């Protein structure tokens, strides 16, 4: 109450008039803590399944071993990204780009089709908040008990309960941070260095920072992230239309709302189906009243759908007063699922996914870079041949050692001279070799000539990389 009074501070000092106060409202709104009530039902179970699956993947994946090494390891210092059978190099950056484009397009596709599915079931903010809420309920009790505890004056019991809750939250957050770092540095060895308190500066920073972010976002900020920080919550409206699936209260059926006995006939009382129990408001994790219509705060979690269905069952009314529907359906018009935007998003998504799948399936784990020597354009050998020097970088991106052969095409009667004919490159290494090409000037075009280097593994002809370069001769 004291905070509320401070917003009329100007008036208390007697300076600005009441009209001034209307023009200069308080710059800040007091946050009202949301105590989402526990909810059971179809969609709550779906979200629980989502949480278990996503958390399971997150916490378990770095522990998985694959052929004697960590299955998923993003080794930043070595710039090698291991995924099971595959090792990606910075040269494979196109795949990461494609994955990000696919992720963005999926967001568009699913939002146009089914509204905020991501927000309600898959977003890390939702998933971790759900876990933190679950812990909070186990320790403090459900909504009513939490509110009572917060109102109660500080006591030993309150301190113990709150302290225990934060202890569990922090423990989980640190484990989350540890897991996060475990994607970038071998997680088993990381465990040893954590126990010995010998983590490197970056490991320590990211472990604590990611842990702190988890604790702050899922424990404290919660719906504030969705309402004030998340850009997706704001630009999603651009993807909505009247055929997009939303969670909505059926005003036609519900109004006028009001309490009544289970035995009473609502029609006789002049009432709609809504008994105004406010349970839909109590379960809402963002603290809104869905009965006010579509709001940007709604993350589409369907908690109110489960809660209302439960009430309807108890009242012996049909379910679905709050339900997944579309604006068109609410107005009694037909809903079109296959709209042009859904089809276009879907087709583009499909095309990109196939392209990436094809790219990865046919990816060749060898690459060749050709760097022409720049200090001299060309040399003349004592035999009168024109000589160009190149530095080749042989990238063996495979997990086995290979010996390669080099061939050169595009030039007539070219002599290839290597200082070391044995082009063996150990697994996962880059080797630099210098090569000289010698050509009779008679066979050259004046100035620059195109030349093609081809590197092929001797034990596997499918491991081939080709690179174009220039051979410079005299201008004549």
């Amino acid at each position: 109450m004291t905070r509320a009074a401070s917003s009329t501070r100007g008036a208390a000092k007697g300076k600005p008039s009441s009209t001034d106060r209307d023009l200069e409202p308080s710059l800040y709104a007091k946050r009202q803590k949301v105590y989402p009530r526990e909810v059971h039902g179809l969609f709550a179970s779906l979200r629980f399944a989502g949480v278990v699956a996503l958390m399971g993947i997150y916490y378990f994946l770095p522990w998985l071993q694959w052929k004697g090494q960590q299955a998923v390891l993003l080794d930043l210092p070595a710039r090698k990204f291991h995924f099971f059978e595959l090792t990606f190099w910075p040269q494979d950056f196109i795949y990461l780009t494609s994955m990000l484009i696919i992720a963005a397009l999926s967001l568009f596709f699913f939002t146009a089709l089914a509204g905020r599915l991501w927000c309600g079931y898959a977003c890390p903010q939702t998933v971790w908040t759900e876990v933190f809420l679950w812990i909070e309920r186990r320790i403090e009790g459900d909504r009513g008990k939490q509110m009572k505890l917060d109102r109660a004056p500080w006591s030993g019991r309150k301190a113990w309960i709150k302290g225990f809750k934060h202890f569990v939250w922090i423990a989980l957050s640190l484990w989350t941070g540890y897991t996060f770092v475990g994607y970038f540095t071998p997680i088993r060895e990381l465990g040893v260095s954590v126990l010995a308190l010998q983590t490197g500066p970056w490991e320590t920073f990211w472990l604590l920072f990611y842990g702190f972010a988890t604790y702050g976002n899922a424990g404290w900020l919660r719906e504030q992230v969705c309402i004030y920080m998340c850009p997706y919550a704001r630009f999603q409206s651009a993807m909505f239309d009247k055929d997009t699936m939303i969670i909505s209260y059926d005003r036609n059926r519900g109004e006028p709302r009001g309490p009544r006995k289970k035995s009473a006939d609502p029609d006789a009382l002049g009432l709609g189906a809504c008994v105004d129990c406010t349970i839909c408001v109590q379960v809402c994790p963002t603290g809104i009243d869905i009965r006010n219509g579509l709001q940007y705060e709604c993350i589409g979690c369907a908690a109110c759908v489960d809660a209302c269905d439960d009430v309807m069952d108890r009242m012996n009314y049909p379910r679905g007063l709050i339900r997944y529907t579309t604006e068109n359906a609410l107005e009694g018009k037909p809903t079109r699922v296959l709209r042009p935007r859904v089809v276009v998003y879907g087709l583009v998504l499909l095309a990109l996914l196939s392209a990436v799948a094809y790219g990865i399936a046919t990816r060749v784990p060898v690459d060749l870079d050709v760097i022409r020597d720049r200090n001299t354009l060309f040399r003349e050998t004592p035999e009168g041949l024109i000589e160009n020097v190149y530095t080749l970088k042989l990238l063996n991106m495979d997990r086995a050692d290979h010996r390669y052969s080099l061939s050169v095409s595009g030039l007539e009667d070219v002599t290839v001279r290597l200082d070391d004919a044995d082009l063996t490159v150990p697994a996962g290494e880059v080797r630099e070799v210098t090569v000289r090409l010698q050509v009779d000037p008679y066979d050259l075009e004046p100035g620059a000539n195109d030349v093609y280097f081809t590197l092929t593994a001797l034990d596997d002809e499918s491991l081939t990389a080709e690179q174009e370069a220039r051979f410079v001769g005299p201008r004549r």
Partner: protein
Amino acid sequence: MADFVSEFWSWFIIIPTVIGILAMFPLVYFNRGQKQSGEADKMGHSWDEDLEEYNNPLPGWWLNLFYITIVFGIIYLILYPGLGSFGGVLGWSSTQRYQNELEYAEERYGPIFEKYQQTDIRTLARNDDAMRAAERLYANYCAQCHGSDARGAPGYPNLRDDNWLWGGEPEQIRETIANGRTGVMPGWEDALGEEGLFNVTEYVLSLSGRQHDSAVAEKGKARYEQLCVACHGPDGTGNTAMGAPNLTNRTWLYGGAQKTVMESIAKGRQGHMPPHGEFLGDSKVHLLSAYVYHLSAQHEQQ
């Protein structure tokens, strides 16, 4: 921080910055009032008949971000340079960071080079690990002139053959890299005249057994023995003490075509290998000497 031309500019930055930061605090503090959330006020404008703008208040915790920013700014300006010529109590500077990186690299890689330095150059040239490290040094410091394959270019000697301008013994190579070399061939245009120039050129070509007119070469020989013999020697095998090239092999530093050779004699040549000892340090020079020795030794094996 002596980057300011006078004390005035330093204060020109300090005073507005400090006043600005300090003024932020009352600005934020006296607007801290929070109201219970509810229906947001409207701005009082409407467009297109019914489009209105809400004046939604910021969430209350946002206020703390402003306080944190102010405190962060103050702490930062105390610790790091930012206030005019005040360098900050941590004494941070980009030059210092660069020095720290250098020291770190020295600490980490120094012992490896130290160990190599204890090894004799001929032995070191057979150490594959050392040669791989040396290859990277070569690419950084030598390849610009001598080429990435070390076969040189016109005016820059080939390091893979066994011809040496200044001697191919390990100690001589080390001396070349550490202190540099300057080879000077004076121009003989005026002394020789056009015909003399042609005659001497023919004689020089004859020294390595190339096609020449022996009558003309015989005339050139006389002039050679007057003018060239001091450096290139009576038999034309050169002198590694002053970097005079051997004229009897088929290696031509500036090109072996007849007119190019004539140009060399007429105009003279100046070759300059810059000294590398001071900035590379003894241990790296030692390692590079072994690498150059190793390149030439490779050639002999082939």
